[in-house]
């Protein structure tokens, strides 16, 4: 582990990995409870258009990705809130639009090709520049700040939207807040695991820890721990074995899930079920 830290690029990569592992499952816990597990995937597809737009206009792709994915997330949320029956079809349309838009725009960019997009689709954590580490740190702080300030309200919203409304909570604002926070998280995680695997870090650690926990808070905290173990573990092993880090991170997370599935069954079986008088 020590020799990893001798390399500048590896230090930057580790910081980025830690931040992403911490933040993605935190917002992911709320998304899973609100049945928005695939929201991250949707935003990831849309973010690709943002990345391509950055190359086309000569702006930093991270910034345009933030812009476009926030807009996409808001659009997805509006579609979700309005349409009751055809919501998933509308989402699907947005996914395809995101990928097609990305491929189209990148081909128009000077010197751009689909290969340019590959590093965003599958991640390129070992080539994260210093500025990106700063952006990731800033966005991660913003996401955690949102959860600290609005966590109690988001919990009520994710449990039952009608109860949230009958408690006087600003339901529309909070729903948009989840979508926008998810969009920021997607952009943070884009460099680490890639847009196609972003959602895995928001969902898999949560699915893992909910096998083992009894409370919402402990599910969230444990999933953040699992998230960091996955990103740092995956990154470290990819340093020693020549494999793409994004894929290893997701495989590590999924392995954790399978282990927790068995362990959770064992715990529940050995826990006596009380009955209420």
């Amino acid at each position, binding site marked *: 582990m020590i020799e990893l830290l001798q390399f500048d690029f590896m230090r930057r990569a580790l910081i980025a990995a830690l931040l992403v592992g911490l933040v993605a499952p935190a917002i992911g816990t709320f998304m899973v409870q609100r049945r928005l597990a695939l929201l991250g995937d949707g935003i990831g597809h849309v973010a690709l258009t943002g990345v391509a737009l950055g190359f086309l206009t000569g702006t930093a792709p991270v910034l345009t990705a933030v812009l476009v994915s926030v807009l996409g997330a808001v659009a997805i949320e509006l579609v979700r809130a309005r349409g009751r029956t055809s919501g998933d079809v509308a989402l699907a349309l947005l996914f395809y639009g995101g990928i097609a838009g990305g491929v189209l725009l990148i081909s128009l960019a000077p010197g751009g090709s689909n290969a340019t997009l590959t590093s965003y689709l599958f991640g390129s954590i070992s080539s994260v520049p210093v500025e990106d580490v700063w952006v990731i740190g800033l966005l991660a702080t913003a996401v955690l700040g949102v959860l600290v300030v609005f966590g109690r*309200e988001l919990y009520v919203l994710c449990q039952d939207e009608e109860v949230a409304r009958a408690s006087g909570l600003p339901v529309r604002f909070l729903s948009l807040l989840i979508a926008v926070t998810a969009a920021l998280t997607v952009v943070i995680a884009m460099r680490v695991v890639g847009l196609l695997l972003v959602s895995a870090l928001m969902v898999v650690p949560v699915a893992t820890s909910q096998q083992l926990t009894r409370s919402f808070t402990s599910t969230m905290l444990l999933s953040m721990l699992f998230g960091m173990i996955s990103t740092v573990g995956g990154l470290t092993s990819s340093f020693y074995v020549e494999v793409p880090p994004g894929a290893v991170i997701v495989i590590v997370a999924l392995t954790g899930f399978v282990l927790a599935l068995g362990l959770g069954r064992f715990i529940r079986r050995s826990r006596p079920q009380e009955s209420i008088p």
Partner: protein
Amino acid sequence: MTSSKTVFTMSGGRVDLERRPVLRGIDLSVEPGEAVAVLGANGSGKSTLIRALLGLIPLSGGETLLYGRPPARFREWWRIGYVPQRLSVGGGVPTTIREVVASGRIARQRRLRPTSAADREATGRALAAVGLAHRALDPVQALSGGQQQRVLIARALAGEPDTFVMDEPTAGVDSGSQKLLAETLSVLVEQGKTVLLVAHELGPLEPLITRAVVLRDGYVCHDGPPPHAVGTHALPGHDHVHPHAEEEPVSPLDWRPTS
């Protein structure tokens, strides 16, 4: 808030769901301290009515007021304790009984201010009132339907509201939980709280109900003392397919409003 202390005032309330009229012109007002049961057959619009009264469903005609204000401009939501029909499962993230009950304080909490001692005490009292204090750290997912219903009631109790609005609190609930609910509610009514609940059959709740509103096809067809043999049996269009030999006749004069 000076103009009216009436809890709910609906006049000419109409609601369409998916272009089908569900409520066709409801006039209803509920005064503080009343214990009102909304009765009616399945599909008569009972749940729709209480959700419309809270502004959870928009009206397509008429108007409704919450403590004298339209729901969109109502700000004192801590006065309302809404108990939905069942605990929503959502994405299945585990959560403890205490977490759910404590979230009932949300309308009384300020953003950025941590959970106060008063919050914790109210949560503790609510848990004790429904007999779940000893299981506060258990996940709600492990509970039976009746036990989950108790959790939902405790969540409303924790908020210490003036008015309780309950959607079918007795549906699919074991008789022990129904009795406990009746005891809890009669204490609330004695304290002068307002109770508005939807029920298919009143069962053990009957003695504490001061007024029954019966819906039929989106209209109010009875508004007054709970009718004899309250429940689906008294409803128009109900088929009596079983004998009623053991049922004791209850005169509307037998009950006294609790003051």
